[in-house]
């Protein structure tokens, strides 16, 4: 099966992810897939969940922290600025405390907590997670392409949905039980209905967001996850290990795409031994790949003659990937 067929046969898979080790071409393939889909008349957003995103480089346009930026007809790109997002959010929390209690300033202890919580690495991750929920919940696009972080981290990101999902369900349940006790006391004391629980309201809001995101990330009908790899022993081993781990988190794996295959045409030319060895090595690894993944290997992209940056090169690569 070819990469193109996956898209044609499963038009409902609107959330597309390219994952893989560092430097294998995740961003390049994300951009190429976005380009191809846009040229097929679909409205596409490609966005990065990586704080060191490189969509800016690939599109040769500064898009960091600028919201969705139009690249060409039907194609938008976005790089989320987690820091900016967290700062605005902190301010929102402070303002809410001031408004709720009519305080002149946020109490020191609380302020310290706000600052400490925001300094944790987990804060950036959960903020990014929430920003992505915002992006996909708006539903303005036909396709959403996630330019993911390298393997281990991507697994962490994907598993976050599942872990948060469990956390929020437990917390909400506890809150609901508390609510029952409150109502019981109200009845015993013949009071009128106890006032609405604002925390429960917030929890249900958070729950809605997390559930939506977790639902998307693990739904084979809506989501396609592709592993990007290059024909090298280390990368293939890592990918095989990762594939097993990803399966445990119900990541809907759709197939593998191989990048940086040295063109065989070169063999007919006068090339150095060095290059002949590399081609032979790649052939051996490609054979192994075919043996272990078979039909799931969907596309092979060649080692290009220059960096894939700018639309003409992206177009060229997309043409090969979706041939």
């Amino acid at each position, binding site marked *: 099966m070819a990469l193109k067929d996956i898209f044609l046969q499963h038009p409902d898979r609107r959330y597309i992810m390219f994952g893989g080790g560092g430097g294998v071409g995740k961003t390049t393939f994300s951009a190429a897939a976005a380009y191809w889909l846009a040229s097929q008349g679909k409205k596409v957003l490609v966005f990065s969940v990586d704080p060191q995103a490189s969509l800016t480089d690939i599109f040769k346009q500064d898009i960091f922290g600028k919201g969705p930026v139009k690249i060409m007809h039907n194609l938008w790109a976005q790089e989320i600025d987690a820091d900016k997002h967290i700062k605005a*959010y902190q301010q929102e*929390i402070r303002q809410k405390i001031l408004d709720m209690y009519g305080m002149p300033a946020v109490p020191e202890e609380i302020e310290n907590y706000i600052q400490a919580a925001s300094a944790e690495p987990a804060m950036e991750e959960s*903020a990014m997670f929430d920003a992505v929920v915002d992006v996909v919940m708006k539903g303005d696009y036909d396709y959403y392409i996630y330019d993911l972080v390298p393997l281990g981290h991507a697994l962490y990101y994907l598993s976050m949905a599942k872990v948060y999902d469990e956390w929020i369900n437990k917390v909400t349940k506890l*809150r609901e039980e508390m609510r029952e006790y*409150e109502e019981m006391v109200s009845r015993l004391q013949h009071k009128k209905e106890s006032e609405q629980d604002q*925390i429960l309201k917030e929890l249900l809001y958070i729950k809605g967001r997390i559930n939506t995101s977790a639902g998307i990330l693990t739904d084979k009908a809506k989501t396609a996850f592709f592993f990007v790899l290059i024909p090298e022993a280390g990368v293939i081993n890592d990918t095989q290990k990762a594939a097993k781990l990803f399966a445990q988190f119900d990541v809907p794996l759709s197939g593998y795409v191989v990048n940086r295959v040295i063109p065989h045409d070169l063999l007919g030319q006068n090339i150095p031994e060095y290059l002949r060895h590399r081609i032979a090595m790649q052939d051996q690894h490609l054979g192994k790949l075919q043996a272990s993944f078979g039909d799931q290997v969907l596309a092979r992209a060649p080692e290009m003659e220059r960096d894939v940056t700018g639309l003409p090169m992206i177009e060229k690569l997309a043409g090969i990937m979706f041939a």
Partner: protein
Amino acid sequence: MSEEEKKSLWQNIRETVYGMAAHDMSRAALRTRASMEHLFILITMGDLLGIPILPPYYSLRLLPYVVPQIATWKRRMLREKDAADAMF
């Protein structure tokens, strides 16, 4: 007997019955509710005591609502033994 005195008599009877029958129950329920409140703050705001909380982004969202309870909660979490433990 004036209307007001009648009312207050009725009120007294009502309160006595409540005191005999339901007061303990509602007190127990309130105590359980208070314990749950502290548990709830612990699993959402544990960071305040150095217990890492998974999605800090979302727990921060709840912070404004628990601001008044934070002080009592911290006291309760940090004290080693509670005099009330022996009483109840």
